[in-house]
C-alpha cells in the first residue's frame, strides 16, 4: 500500500461514524519498501486538490521522510514547482508499506498490513449499520 492510498483511508468502524478524529491512521512497526514508479506528473497535478496535506506531511515524517514543506502549497494555482512534484511523486507513489499496523487515533482499531495488503475487515460488532 502506498501513501497515496493511506492519505485517503479513514477508520470506518462503527465507533468512528461521528468523529473526524478517525484520520490519518497511525503507522506502527512498519516495514517499507521503495518501488520505483514511472513519473506521472499529470496524475499528481490532478490529485493535488484531494491531498490532506497535514496528514501527508505528518505520515511522511513518521517514516523519516521530511522533503515536504510543512505549509501546504497553494493548489488553486497550477503547480509548476518541479522539485515539489518530484517529492510528491516519491512520497505518494514510491513508498510502499509492506508490513505493520495502522491504528485508528480515535477508537484504536488495529488494521494489519501483510505483504503490502491492509486488512480493512471489521468484526461483526464494529460494522457501521
Amino acid at each position, binding site marked *: 500500500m502506498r501513501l497515496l492510498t493511506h492519505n485517503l483511508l479513514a477508520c470506518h468502524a462503527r465507533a468512528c461514524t461521528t468523529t473526524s478524529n478517525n484520520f490519518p491512521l497511525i503507522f506502527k512497526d512498519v516495514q517499507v519498501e*521503495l518501488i520505483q514508479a514511472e513519473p506521472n506528473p499529470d496524475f499528481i497535478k*490532478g490529485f493535488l486538490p484531494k491531498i490532506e496535506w497535514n496528514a501527508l506531511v505528518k505520515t511522511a515524517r513518521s517514516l523519516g521522510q521530511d522533503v515536504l514543506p510543512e505549509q501546504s502549497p497553494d493548489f488553486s494555482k497550477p503547480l509548476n514547482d518541479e522539485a515539489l512534484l518530484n517529492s510528491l511523486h516519491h512520497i505518494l507513489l514510491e513508498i510502499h508499506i509492506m508490513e505493520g499496523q495502522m491504528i485508528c487515533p480515535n477508537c484504536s482499531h488495529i488494521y494489519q498490513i501483510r505483504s503490502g*495488503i491492509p486488512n480493512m475487515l471489521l468484526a461483526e460488532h464494529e460494522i457501521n449499520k
Partner: protein
Amino acid sequence: MSRPEHIAPPEIFYGDVEATKYTANTRVQTIQAEMTERAVELLMLPEHRKPALILDIGCGSGLSGEILTEHGHEWIGMDISPSMLEVALERETEGDIMLADVGQGCGFRAGSFDGAISISVLQWLCNADSTSHSPAQRLSTFFTSLYSSLSRGSRAVFQFYPESDEQVKFIMTFATKAGFGGGLVVDFPNSRKAKKFYLVLWVGGEMAVGPNGETAKQELPQALMHEHEGEAGSSGPTSVKYEKRRSDRSKVKGKGKKKSGESTKDYILRKKELYRKRGKEDVPKDSRYTGRKRKDAF
C-alpha cells in the same frame, strides 16, 4: 448451471484453487478485459481528469485493474478473497489492493475517487452468507459509503449478472436512497451470449466535462447492439446507435499489456523480465535504487 454466489460465500468460492484457475483461464481474461473496457467507456471521464484515480470494487486478481493501468489510470482495489488478492500480488498488478468486504462500507475520505468500476461482483452482495447478513443492510451501507467517496460529477459503473428484474430493482432502491442517479444499460439485449448488464450510477445530475467547472447533464448512455439487431422485426429499442466496438487499447502504450494468445504464466514472466530490464535501463548508476524493488534503507 447454478450461480457461484449460491454455492458458497465469495472468500470461500474464490479459494486458492479457483482463484488460480479463474485468473489463468484465457476466456475469462478476454471477457473480463472486454467488460472492463466497456465500463471505462461508460465512466466518461473528462479529458482534464485523466489520468484519474479509480476505485475497483471487487478487484479480485487484478484482471479488471490491469485494463485501468493500460488506460494510464491509478487505481485502488478492494476484495474479500485473500486468495484472489494473493494472485494479484503474484501478477504484480500496479494498483494498491486491500482486503475488505464492501458490504461493510469502504472507509475512504469524501471525494477520494474520480470514478469507480466493479466487474462481475454486485450479484454477490445480494446474498446473505450468514444469519447476521442482511443484503438490504449491506447494499445500503455499501452504496452510502461509495457515494461519499466519489467526487461530485463522477460515475460508478457496475457490470454484473442480475438474477431477475426484481434483483435489479432491489439494488437500484439502495443506490437511489444513497443519493445516486442513473440506471441500467443493457448491451446486446437480443443476444443470449453477448448480452451484458451495466448499472451506471452518478453523483449529482451534472457531470464535469471541462477544467474550468464546465458541466453537462448526466444522461444514461446508449446500449450497444449488433448491427442486425436494429433491423425491422427486432424487439430492441430503435434509438440505439449502431456503434461498432472500437477499442482504444491500441492507442495506449504497451505497459502491462498482454499479447493475445499468451498464457498467464508467459505473461507474468514477460512482465517480470520487462521490469527487470526497466530497472536496469531507466535507473541511473548513482540512483538510490538497484532495481525495481529494494528494501528500504531510510
